[in-house]
């Protein structure tokens, strides 16, 4: 004999239960069920508050429900969107269908939203265990994910740091490259200068070899020629004395040439001789003293003018040689038509010392004679005047050794002016 199902028992064991009759009308339900389905009254069709998810049957009817009593029933509650999962039991005595089940959720949050707590579940219900397991695995995954993210972040930082380093290195290389290019340009310029210098040196050397082969050979040839004229048969021939005098003259000449050449070589070699303060006026006077006999012989009038400068810090021997040669040239190339007038001027112009030697001599035809011919070694402009052609070359060499320059202006038949400019 079947007994009616006691409601109190149901409330404790299946708090989510609900009962309905053969017309599918709601009769009563558990207190947890009531939390999910508000304001449901007796007689309401169950499909007013739920829809069937499972089993998939064509149409719900009492007949179908009885047929499917071994099926799991899933109802979705329309208001809370929560699925209740369980089974349907028919009680003949009560003439009622009982749904016995509980929420099928995957997150505790769905329950919290519907104000359900642990106390709304029967103690035998495994829903909470299921949720806890899901939550625990979720937590574990989250932790691993966080670890991986940290790792990635760290790697990202590392990569960024490496990029920064690379960038710096690239900039360094670029700057080195730039500096290298500058250096190459500078070195190339220096190289060009050196090449130019070498070119000039080479020209000088060529000139030197020319002097050695020509100017030294010519007096030697003369000596040899004179020796052939020597009367060996008759040693006491008075002609021999004449020959010997000529030979002596040639030898002296040769000696002078060699002395001059060594002087030139030494100027080129010793660019840094000792410098000292040279008193310009006194220096000029001592040179005029050494040319005293030539001055008396030519009856030359010589004046010295100093304008704004008395001394210069320089190589005294060079200054002496420059002045000596210029004055001696002026005396040498005097005009036979007038008394020689020579003016020596020392003046300061734009931070330089200018030494001017002006004469009223025969002058030089500058239109037909190049500067090279004037200042070149053993070049002689006037063949009728005695001179070995070395003086002006020596002057030019010395002026250049003092970082200066020499220029001249001249009018044929009127006179010549040499201007030496030296840095102070």
């Amino acid at each position, binding site marked *: 004999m079947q007994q009616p199902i006691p409601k109190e028992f149901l409330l404790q064991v299946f708090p989510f239960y609900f009962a309905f009759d053969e017309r599918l009308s709601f009769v009563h339900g558990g207190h947890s069920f009531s939390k999910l389905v508000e304001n449901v009254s007796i007689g309401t069709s169950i499909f007013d508050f739920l829809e069937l998810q499972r089993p998939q049957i064509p149409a719900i009817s009492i007949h179908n429900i009885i047929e499917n009593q071994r099926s799991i029933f899933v109802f979705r509650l329309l208001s809370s969107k929560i699925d209740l999962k369980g089974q349907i039991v028919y009680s003949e005595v009560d003439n009622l269908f009982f749904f016995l089940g509980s929420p099928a959720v995957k997150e505790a949050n769905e329950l919290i939203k519907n104000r359900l*707590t642990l*106390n709304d579940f029967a103690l035998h219900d495994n829903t909470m265990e299921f949720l*806890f397991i899901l939550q625990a695995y979720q937590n574990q995954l989250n932790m691993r994910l966080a670890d991986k993210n940290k790792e990635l972040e760290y790697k990202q930082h590392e990569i960024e740091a490496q990029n920064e380093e690379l960038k710096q290195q690239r900039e360094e290389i670029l700057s080195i490259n730039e500096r290298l290019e500058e250096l190459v340009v500078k070195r190339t310029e220096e190289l060009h200068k050196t090449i130019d210098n070498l070119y000039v040196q080479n020209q000088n050397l060529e000139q030197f070899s020319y002097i050695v082969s020509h100017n030294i050979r010519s007096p030697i040839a003369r000596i040899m020629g004179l020796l052939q004229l020597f009367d060996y048969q008759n040693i006491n021939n008075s002609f021999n004395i004449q020959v010997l005098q000529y030979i002596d003259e040639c030898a002296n000449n040769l000696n002078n040439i060699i002395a001059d050449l060594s002087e030139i070589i030494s100027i080129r070699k010793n660019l840094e001789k000792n410098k000292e303060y040279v008193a310009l006026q006194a220096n000029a006077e001592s040179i005029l003293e050494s040319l005293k006999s030539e001055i008396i012989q030519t009856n030359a009038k010589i004046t010295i003018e100093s304008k704004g400068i008395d001394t210069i810090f320089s190589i005294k021997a060079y200054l002496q040689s420059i002045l000596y040669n210029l004055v001696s040239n002026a005396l040498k190339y005097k005009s036979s038509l007038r008394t020689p007038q020579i003016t020596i001027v020392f003046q300061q112009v734009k931070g330089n010392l200018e030494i001017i030697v002006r004469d009223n001599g025969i002058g030089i035809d500058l239109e037909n004679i190049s500067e090279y011919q004037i200042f070149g070694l053993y070049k002689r402009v006037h063949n009728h005047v005695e001179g070995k052609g070395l003086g002006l070359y020596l002057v030019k060499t010395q002026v250049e050794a003092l970082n200066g320059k020499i220029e001249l202006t001249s009018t044929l038949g009127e006179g010549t002016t040499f201007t030496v400019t030296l840095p102070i």
Partner: protein
Amino acid sequence: MYGLVNQAIEDMITHQFSVAKWEEIKKTACLGDMAGFENMQSYPDNLTYDLIGAVSKTLDITTEQVLEAFGEYWVLYTAEKGYGDMLKMAGDSLPIFMNNLDTLHSIVGSMMPNLRPPSFQCTEITNHSLKLHYHSKRIGLTNMVIGLIKGLGKRFGTVCEVSLIESKKSEQGQEDVFFVKW
């Protein structure tokens, strides 16, 4: 014990002190090489006891103080580390939550075979007090329970007093009764 417990100790030290302090504690507990704990992995109980001992030694406080502080932290930690919803469902007031302590531990125990979670029972419940009976196979964690209740009090904003009124150690484990007043 599960890795989660050891993780919570690590979290407590690194947050309330420093990472360097935690490294020091690990060294003292002879766990210097240990990189970290897996929260769902079971570790020997001795490892946790060693850690508690090392914390006590390094911070120069008693193990009882360490356990109480840890019990309190445990409530915060589990709520933060993904179990917040579970805790919410266990109740929104101190007495309701304490009533569900046993269910909560059973639920957790059912999925962690090595957990051997403690049991809790509430008796003599009034509006402002109850007696909480605590049974554990593990001995010596009494002060952790005190911290746990105080932590729950803070969680629900309820000022409470906890006193140990009975304590028994046996081969069965630890059996304590606490009187909780709020």
